[in-house]
C-alpha cells in the first residue's frame, strides 16, 4: 500500500517469495474433521499460520417462531477473530468487518446446503480464527464447509476457498501475512468443489483486465487443490474409527 511503516523493499526476490514459496505455491495446508467433541459437527483448516476452527449446531428449532421459514432451515453464521489471533490485539465483539465476512460466508454455504430438507429449523455455524496470517475468511469457510459435512447437514458439495494476490507486479497464490499488508491486491474466492461456480468473490487492490483473468484462473486451480484436501480429510474421519 505504498509508504507503510516497515514495508520490505521487495516482496519477490529471484522468483521466490519472502517465505521461499514459488508464485503458485500454497503454504502448508491442514484440514481436520471433528476436532471438537461437543459440537454436532466441527472442522479445522490452516493455510500456514492462519488457523480457523468451525463448529456447526443443528438443525434445531428456530426462535423466534414468527421468523421461522416454513419451507427452509435458516442459516446463521458468526465469524470471529479471537483477541490474540493477531499481532495487535483485537477488541472482542462484532465489527463491521466480521459482520460482512459472516454474511459472505453464510451466502457461500447457502449455495450448497439443502435448506429445504429441514424446514422451520435453524442451523448455527460458528467460525473462530485462532491465528491470523491473511486469508482468514478463506480458512474459515473451508473449516465451516468441513464442519457442516461432519454435522450430517445435507450438502450438494463442499465449498473450497483460497486467496490470490499481486505483489511486485507478479500474480501469486495464497497470500500470506506480509504479502497481505504490503502487497497490491488481495482477491478471495470460493468455488463449489471443482465446479465452475464462484460463490464468494472479494477483491481489494487494482488490477488490469488481463491480470484479473489470470488471477481468476489461478484462484480456481487453488480452490481445486483445497477441495481435494477437504475430501481427503472427510474420508479419513471414519476410516479407522478414531474419534477424538
Amino acid at each position, binding site marked *: 500500500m505504498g509508504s507503510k511503516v516497515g514495508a520490505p523493499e521487495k516482496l519477490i526476490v529471484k522468483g521466490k517469495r519472502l517465505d521461499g514459496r514459488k508464485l503458485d505455491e500454497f503454504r502448508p495446508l491442514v484440514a481436520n474433521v471433528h476436532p471438537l467433541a461437543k459440537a454436532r459437527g466441527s472442522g479445522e483448516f490452516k493455510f500456514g499460520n492462519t488457523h480457523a476452527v468451525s463448529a456447526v449446531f443443528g438443525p434445531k428449532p428456530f426462535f423466534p417462531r414468527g421468523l421461522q421459514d416454513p419451507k427452509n432451515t435458516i442459516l446463521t453464521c458468526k465469524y470471529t477473530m479471537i483477541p490474540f489471533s493477531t499481532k495487535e490485539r483485537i477488541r472482542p465483539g462484532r465489527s463491521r468487518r466480521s459482520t460482512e465476512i459472516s454474511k459472505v460466508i453464510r451466502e457461500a454455504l447457502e449455495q450448497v446446503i439443502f435448506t429445504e430438507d429441514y*424446514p422451520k429449523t435453524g442451523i448455527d455455524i460458528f467460525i473462530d480464527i485462532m491465528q491470523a496470517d491473511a486469508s482468514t475468511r478463506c480458512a474459515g469457510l473451508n473449516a465451516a464447509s468441513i464442519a457442516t459435512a461432519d454435522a*450430517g*447437514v445435507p450438502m*450438494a458439495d463442499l465449498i473450497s476457498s483460497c486467496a490470490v494476490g499481486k505483489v511486485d507486479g507478479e500474480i501469486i497464490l495464497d497470500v500470506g501475512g506480509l504479502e497481505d499488508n504490503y502487497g497490491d491486491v488481495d482477491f478471495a474466492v470460493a468455488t463449489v468443489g471443482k465446479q465452475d461456480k464462484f460463490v464468494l468473490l472479494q477483491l481489494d487492490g487494482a488490477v488490469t483486465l488481463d491480470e484479473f483473468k489470470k488471477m481468476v484462473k489461478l484462484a480456481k486451480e487453488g480452490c481445486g487443490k483445497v477441495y481435494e484436501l477437504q475430501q481427503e480429510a472427510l474420508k479419513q474421519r471414519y476410516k479407522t474409527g478414531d474419534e477424538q
Partner: protein
Amino acid sequence: MTENKSEVLVKEKEIVIPGQTLAKGLDYLPSNGCYRSNNEIKSKVMGLTKIKDRYIGVIPLAGVYVPKPGDGIIGTVSDIQSTFWIVDINSPYDSILQLGEAVGEYVDLNKTDISTYFDVGDVIYAKVLNVAKSKNITLTMNDYRAKKLSGGKLLSITPTKVPRLIGREGSMIELIKNKTDCQIIVGQNGIVWIKGEKETLAIKAILTIERESHISGLTDKITKLLGGEKDGE
C-alpha cells in the same frame, strides 16, 4: 455422441462424502441421502452407501432425527396443555400427544388434570402417528409397546446408528440384554432406555457400537466386551 452407459461407481456399505458421485447414467435413481445432478447420482451426506436394485441411497453417519410415521420413539414430556402433552423426542421438531391417543378411558376434564396420567419430566415410549407436511408431529400410545418408563437410565446415540444397535433381527440388542440382565428399549430417535442389573456394562456396549458402527467385526468385539466383564463395571 452420448455415452449413456449407466454405471455404479461405489460398493455397498462404502463410506462416501457430500458431493461424491455414486453413479452415472439415467438408469439409477436417488434414494435417501442422495440427489441427481444431470446424469449423475451424488451423495448429500457423509455416510454408508446402500444399493437396492436401481436405488442408490446413503445412510448418514451423523445427523438429527427426522420422525417417520410408525417409528417407535422414547420421549420426555416437556409441557402440558389442557388436552395434550408436548413431548421432546430429540428432534428439531415438536411432537404432540393428544389425550385421546394416550388414554383409553373417558376423562372428565372438569374433574381431572391430565398431569395425573403423564407429568412434565415423565419418559414415555410411544409411536409416531403422523408427520404433517408442516412438520407437526403427532404421537400415539395406542400400541402394545407404548408405556411410561420409570427408573432406569437414558442414553442418547446418533439416530442413524439405531439399526446397527438393534442388529440383524434384533441379534445385537438381544445379546446385550442377555449378558447384562437388563431391559433395553431402543427408540428410532436414538434414545435408549436401560434398566436392570448391569446398566453400566450395557451403556458401555452401546457407546462402543455408536462409535464403531461402521467397522466390521463389531459383533465379536461386543461379545468379548460383555463376556469378559465380571460384575458390571
